[in-house]
């Protein structure tokens, strides 16, 4: 084993470990970011619940079940967003892992060929070729008759390099390796973008319908309205807030279902584009 093939074999071992760790950590980062985004949205709903309960002069401690039920509905809706983005991330990371394996096996093929290099160059056939080539080149330098020169030149050009097939195969494996590197970089970028795409999607879903009027900034009419509302709607927490907040979940559901379908479609498209590229790289290599 040469210093290069030995070095490459060691790097394959490093890459196997790094790939496996990255797959787990990448998926972990994605899921945690999505979960954090959901937690802050649910917290937003909870704060709104408490604030509305206070507004309607309700004791929050007596609304534990109502609060838990409402938050559960919101959590269930957000878990649908979590699932599609988590799945997108997983699909991309697993796909990347498959192509990483393809790259590792290509490095393995390069190592095999590099180890054959000395054998090819020391073969009787190659030594004879080199000697014959040298002999003809030296002869060309001394020939003075054009017809003889042309004939010798023709013989030199007709000589078949026994290493040509080897060089060609090595060059094609190196090209395949380079193409796989490019593809892996692009999938890595796409996979890394998924957590933030999911976080932005979750953040874009509005959970709080209306803010409670800030009385200090309200005009006299608003103040009267708020005062009357406070008197007459004291007992309407269920009707004025809880029913509406539950209704909001239904609206969110339609919005989230649409969003989830779009993400699923995007995932299928990205995966099929990558697989198509991978097939092209492999097909270009096997085609003669």
């Amino acid at each position, binding site marked *: 084993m*040469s210093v*290069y*093939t030995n*070095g*490459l074999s060691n*790097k394959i071992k*490093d*890459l196997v470990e*790094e*790939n*496996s*760790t*990255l797959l*787990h*950590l*990448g998926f*972990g*980062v994605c899921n*945690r*970011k999505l979960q*954090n985004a959901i937690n802050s949205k649910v917290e937003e709903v909870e704060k709104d619940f408490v604030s509305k309960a206070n507004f309607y002069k309700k004791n929050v401690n007596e609304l534990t079940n109502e609060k838990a039920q409402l938050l559960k509905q919101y959590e269930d809706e957000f878990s649908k967003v979590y699932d599609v983005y988590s799945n997108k991330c997983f699909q991309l990371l697993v796909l990347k892992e498959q192509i990483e394996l393809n790259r590792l096996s290509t*490095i393995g093929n*390069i190592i095999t060929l*590099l180890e054959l290099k000395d054998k090819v160059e020391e073969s009787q056939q190659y030594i004879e070729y080199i000697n014959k080539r040298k002999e003809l080149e030296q002869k060309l330098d001394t020939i003075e008759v054009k017809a003889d020169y042309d004939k010798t030149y023709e013989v030199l050009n007709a000589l078949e390099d026994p290493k040509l097939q080897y060089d060609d195969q*090595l060059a094609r494996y*190196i090209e395949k*390796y380079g193409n796989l*590197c490019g593809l892996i970089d692009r999938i*890595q970028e796409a996979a890394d973008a998924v957590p933030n795409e999911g976080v932005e999607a979750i953040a874009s879903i509005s959970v709080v319908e209306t803010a409670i009027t800030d009385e200090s900034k309200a005009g006299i009419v608003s103040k009267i309205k708020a005062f009357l509302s406070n008197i007459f709607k004291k007992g309407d927490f269920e009707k004025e807030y809880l029913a509406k907040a539950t209704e909001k979940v239904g609206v969110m559901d339609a919005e989230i279902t649409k969003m989830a379908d779009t993400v699923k479609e995007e995932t299928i498209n990205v995966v099929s584009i990558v697989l198509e590229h991978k097939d092209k790289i492999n097909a270009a290599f096997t085609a003669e």
Partner: protein
Amino acid sequence: MDNNQVFYDGRIIDMANISIEELEGYYNKIKAEKNETIAKVNELIKNSIV
């Protein structure tokens, strides 16, 4: 090891019990290490064919 644990640098990282910042820190660190490994592979391949 369960699905929430990864082995790195001679020890087990429990992903469920570290902050997102730490988790991302490990992820970026290993990604950088992997990029260095690939750069080394590229260099070895380049030098081996000269």
